[in-house]
């Protein structure tokens, strides 16, 4: 299981072992990472599992699809490295991935 670091809104670094085959969002929720709400359970319908991907990692992930792009546009403080963690699938290649959880989730 790849080790993935979440920097929680409080600044705390949480390193989790993420099971391969599920989404990054599910791995975060299972491990009680603070600030990932994931209200829709991964349907790309709520925009509440937003994370900022560490710059060197961002281009290594699969690109955002149009639906995700649209969700992120009105998310709380979107940035160029924003992703919805429900759209990132955990693979062995993600060993060492680092993401930051925003201060807030949702549209406002």
């Amino acid at each position: 299981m790849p080790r993935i670091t979440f920097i929680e809104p409080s600044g705390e670094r949480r390193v989790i072992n993420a099971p391969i085959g599920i989404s990054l969002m599910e791995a975060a929720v299972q491990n009680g990472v603070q600030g990932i709400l994931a209200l829709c359970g991964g349907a790309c319908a709520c925009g509440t599992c937003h994370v900022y991907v560490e710059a060197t990692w961002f281009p290594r992930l699969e690109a955002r699809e149009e639906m995700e792009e649209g969700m992120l546009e009105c998310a709380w403080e979107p940035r160029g490295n924003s992703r919805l963690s429900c759209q990132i699938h955990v693979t062995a290649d993600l060993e060492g991935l680092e993401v930051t959880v925003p201060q807030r989730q949702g549209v406002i």
Partner: protein
Amino acid sequence: MISTIVVVGGGQAGAQAIDTLRREGFTGRLLLIGDEPELPYQRPPLSKKYLSGELTADRLPFRHRAFYEEHRVELRLGLQAVALDPGARRVELADGEVLSYDRLLLALGSSVRRLICPGADLPGVHYLRTVADVMLIRAAIKPGRRAVIIGGGYIGLETAATCRYMGCEVTVLELADRVMNRVVAPCVSQFFEQEHRAQGIHISCNTRVTRLEGAGCVEHVVCADGSKVAADLVIVGVGAIATTALASAAGLACDNGIIVDEYCRTSDEAIFAAGDCCNHPSLRFGRRVRIESVDNAFEQAKSAAFNLLDRKIAHDRVPWFWSDQYDCKLLIAGLSEDYDRQVLRGDPATRSFSVCYLKGSELIAVEAVNHSKDYMAGRKLIAERAQMNLAKLANPDLAIKDAVAELA
């Protein structure tokens, strides 16, 4: 002093209230009572990826058992709360246990509306609300079997799509003149009817079911015009009703749900309610509403948890909803009743479009098909009570946020 809080209801709202209570520092005795045997779990996948088997049971619960142990939450699962005595501040469970509380949260959810007609209780007639329901349906679905879905709402259509995906012959019978007629605009209904028909589903609107027939098991659905639809299984999705029996028997005010104020408080000062079961004032929409959605259950339970701890927070959110059918995603923000006009953005033929609802020139709802941008912008602008410029709004090449009317 608040030393014991009892939460009745193990769905989205109950689970969220527990989480927020502990996170906000409640250290007293905390109990969660749920009438299903499972740990609190997500319901939305039930008609979709859980029914199809793509999502396994271990991925449904919000939290593992360890979470409840770690947060000292006493679980009473598979047990119904059968009586409530607000005077004595006691709730009684089906096994006879009586629990005293200082504060009580009712997160009772909603229950399926039952079909009332001869034959409605025949074996082979299913409802879809719980994990247990889905296990029965899944066992009945086999490629080539004829599934008749009664009701063309969210649950009916999502289930129809999943049954089709699993190889069934599927017929949807809808009483109204179009599917999802209570929740979406005619062009959205039409779009989804076309999608379903293209997948080989038979949809029959303006169709009233009068009885179900079969020798030992359902075999036919008989309609008001005398037509008969052959069925190996029937799934009924004709809406849900607020679960209020416990509250109304205890004398709490109920009217299409348990009546609460904006602080989630019922007519008894020690009892709060949240989620599908309650009827609350919407400050944004200026009327009482009862909302069946994950988002409302989550947000209202969160607000209720603060209020349970005497930290007043009004629940006032713009509701949102979604539905997945095949590769189409319907996203809805706001409440569309009481609108003055609808504005179509884009062309349904492109399979990505939206419908905006205006009251005067104020945006009150957005329905988006495969168009997350309009939906998310809508959620924001509806909350802000944005006034829209009609001509700009009707231009799909302009973003919704750029169609806000300039202030005079």
